[in-house]
């Protein structure tokens, strides 16, 4: 199944959008049903991982902390994601690898897969943040190619598509709110964080 779309964020310049979309905590907070996104290091275990509560994001968070936890190229992440499709509400244990991060063009691509309750999926996703053509904001292009198997796939596109669209729409409106929370005066902060990336 292919999903793709575009979002315009009038108030948010690409640089700022890039910083926020690079923060696993900010992404987690905007992604409905996502309980955590965390690097899959040696210590990580699905049954042992303890969720950190009340982690600060920008503007409250410390710039160094945000920069340190930002998505890294070729890093593998674990994400626990609960999706409700019809009567089925599986919790997907998902692994995501960031394949590419282009700090100049603001392009990020990732591959991932997950499984839960007799359902499984694999996906290739990406986003590209463009400067808005007639304004100071950004235009975010995104795409996902997903192979879905099992119980959720059995429900068919007429059930899956609205759920996927709802998750994506919620995500972008929420992330937009997070971005606009970061006042203009803080643009120095996002620049600083960008400087610390890589």
């Amino acid at each position: 199944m292919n999903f793709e779309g575009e979002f315009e964020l009038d108030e948010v310049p690409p640089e700022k959008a890039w910083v926020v979309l690079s923060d696993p905590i900010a992404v987690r907070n905007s992604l409905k049903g996502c309980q955590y996104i965390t690097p899959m290091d040696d210590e990580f275990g699905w049954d042992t991982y303890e969720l950190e509560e009340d982690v600060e994001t920008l503007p409250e968070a410390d710039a160094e902390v945000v920069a340190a936890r930002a998505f890294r190229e070729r890093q593998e992440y674990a994400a626990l994601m609960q999706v409700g499709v019809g009567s089925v509400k599986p919790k997907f244990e998902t692994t995501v690898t960031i394949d590419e991060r282009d700090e100049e063009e603001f392009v990020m691509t990732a591959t991932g897969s997950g499984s839960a309750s007799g359902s499984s999926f694999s996906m290739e996703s990406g986003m590209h943040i463009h400067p808005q053509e007639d304004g100071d904001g950004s235009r975010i292009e995104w795409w996902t190619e997903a192979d879905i198997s099992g119980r959720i796939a059995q429900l068919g596109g007429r059930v899956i598509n609205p759920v996927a669209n709802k998750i994506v729409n919620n995500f972008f409106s929420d992330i937009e709110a997070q971005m606009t929370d970061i006042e203009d005066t803080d643009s120095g902060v996002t620049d600083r964080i960008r400087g610390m990336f890589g």
Partner: protein
Amino acid sequence: MSSETDDIPEAETEYQHDEDGGPDPEKHCGHGRGGMGEGVKRKEDKRFITGRGNYVDDIKKPGMLHCEIVRSPHAHARINEIDTSRAMEVDGVVAVLTAEDLAAHELATMPTLMDDTQDVLVNDKVKFQSQEVAAVIAEDRYVAKDGAEKVAVDYEVLDPVVTAEDALEADAPLIRDELDDQEDNHIFDWDVGDKEATDKVFEAADVTVSEQMEYQRLHPAPIETCGCVTDWDPGKDKITVHLTSQAPHAHRTLFSQVSGIPEHKVRIVSPDIGGGFGNKVPIYPGYVVAAAASVVLERPVKWMEERSENIQTTGFARDYDMTGELAATEDGIIKGVRTDVLANHGAYNAVAQPSKFPAGFFNIFTGSYDVEAAYGSLTAAFTNTAPGGVAYRCSFRVTEAVYLIERMVKVLAQELDMDPAEIRRRNFIQPEQFPYESATGWNYDSGDYEKALDKALEMADYDHYREEQRRRIENDADKLIGIGISSFTEVVGAGPGKSCDIAGIEMFDSADIRVNPTGNAVLRVGVQTQGQGHETTFAQIVAEELGMDVENITVEHGDTDTDPYGLGTYGSRSTPVAGAATAVAARKVRDKAKSIAANELEAAEEDIEWDRGSGEFHVAGAPDRSLTITEIAASAYMNHPGSEEPGLEAVNYYDPPEMTYPFGSYIVVVEVDRETGEVDFERFVAVDDCGNRINPMVIEGQIHGGLAQGIGTAMMEHVTYDENGNCTGGDFMNYLLPTANEIPNFETGYTVTPSPHHPIGAKGVGESPTVGSPPAIVNAVVDAMAHAGTTHVEMPMTPDRVWENLAEAGLERDPAETVVFDPVGGDEGEPADD
């Protein structure tokens, strides 16, 4: 008695019905004791309607564990690794089994009923979605589910192929790569009849017609899913399996063969069964896993499917892609039938039918018609879908055959612009032609097809609806009328041991009657009811044959430790085979009763007569010197004659000399909405002939249930897959079963043409309605559009599909053209002042 065949001629003389087939006391039928022909209320219903049934899932044993199966989300995938460690850490999980564990007990694979080998748990490669990959055994059902969530399986996903047509393409992925000599997805080719003679008939024919039709994949979908409670007793080295089984004895033999446990140490108990319809004939991996777990853990283990597991993994039915052809004269005399079928068997060849019949009894496809030549061919293929091909309320592919021929007759009638009733009449096998040998080799026992058709036409007021149909077409009405006919013939009662076996075991059946000293009796049979009413109808046979009151007879079945060996209930075989065994065993008891009566009445045995009307034994010419069966039973235990053993009991194992051939004519009148594609049933007339009738009320119940399932087949049900092999019709949200809302009023009627070779002249009826009704329904819908050139509509005929067919024929009506509902609008719509 010397042999069973000596009893057969009795069938012709002993039972008589009145002209309409009702019980006739004057002619030895219906004596008020609950014998043949009486509508006795079902004995089993008391416990069912008061909530006292005992189904497999009701069984709870001390220390019982629960089994949950981990299933593959992929239709075709290689398994690289299974990690069970996280599941084992879940509190309450006792064991996690994989193919490796089963291999240690030589249980990694199991034979199917068609001699294929199916993985119990996937060894290497998943071949269909939801296939069994691992099993979690836990203290509690919910814990087992939690554990199953934690089993991590690393799959390498492969391209699947889901249709038989695609599977036979040269570049299709090879599904069964574990088989040494399997280079493609082809399973077998089969053919029947005389090809050359048939081709000649077609070449010489005035008219030929051809139509392609799919009998879609269905699932029997019994309301009770499959399951078991397995209980290994290490003290006795014996396993007891409470099983949702339509064939407990055959399952005992197979269980023993698969597990290596000696057969006398295996007890199968099939308790109350909530519908089977063929779904509970095969052995499924879950049973084997639960049994293995019980033996290893030495504790009882319960496994019970969920609804979606039942539909997605256990035996489906049909899935035949058929081409039908008829050759005929200009006046509608059918000369030849030709058919070619592409059969989807799923990932394993696991069809459940007699082993010498790879295409079941599909070769009954000449139906009720006297045809000169016929030829059928079939190719079966593996696909990445669940294995199956069970006889869903059907005698082994008779359903597909009847659909083919009854649809084709309608196609021919349209081609020749003939009335579909008239064309049938011209081609029926005539009553005097029986026994009739068909072009494909069947030996029909008896029939009077025209009589049944005439009765149905009269009941349905056929001419009136033909007139109404014409009127609606002339008036360009919004709703069209269609009239569909099906005059089907079935072949049931498998079957003679010389031709019919399941996994090598001949398809006889058995009865064991024991009359107690106080005059009541227990009958044990080798078949197993799933709702058919055996506890009543078999008791009625004994009541009839021994002059006992039906109330005094208990029927037991389903326990292999106590019941005589039998092949089980499916394919409408219980009455034709076990019913015959019951009658023969009862007659053996009667013979011994005569000897006892002679002793008591101080007469010669040959002077003792039995009067069917009174049910009493008396001295010839002296009706006053008589004894009842109750008095004789007492004598059998308290004053038995020296010439006989004490006691009063008999056993019979009945090998039927031939199959039986029930038939009927169904007429369906529909109204098709040109705007919405909805189909409404105006009339639904079913005239059945199942030979002599044991219990008319039970028969009527069987007919009603089967017609409902026929409507489900024609209108709603379809197990669908997407191109990735995801089963998109695998739950009750997507696999629609008919409910009271979709079921019209049924009008049932009957004729009686006894089977000449059956001890009580009965033929079996449980499947006639599911077999006979789908073509009648489709013929009706096609008939509504026939004037615009429609020759076929595929099942299930959902409103959108019917609408598409209406549109293709140019008959669709745009909703915009119709008057908008407007309760107030316009001057005339103004409510009048008071």
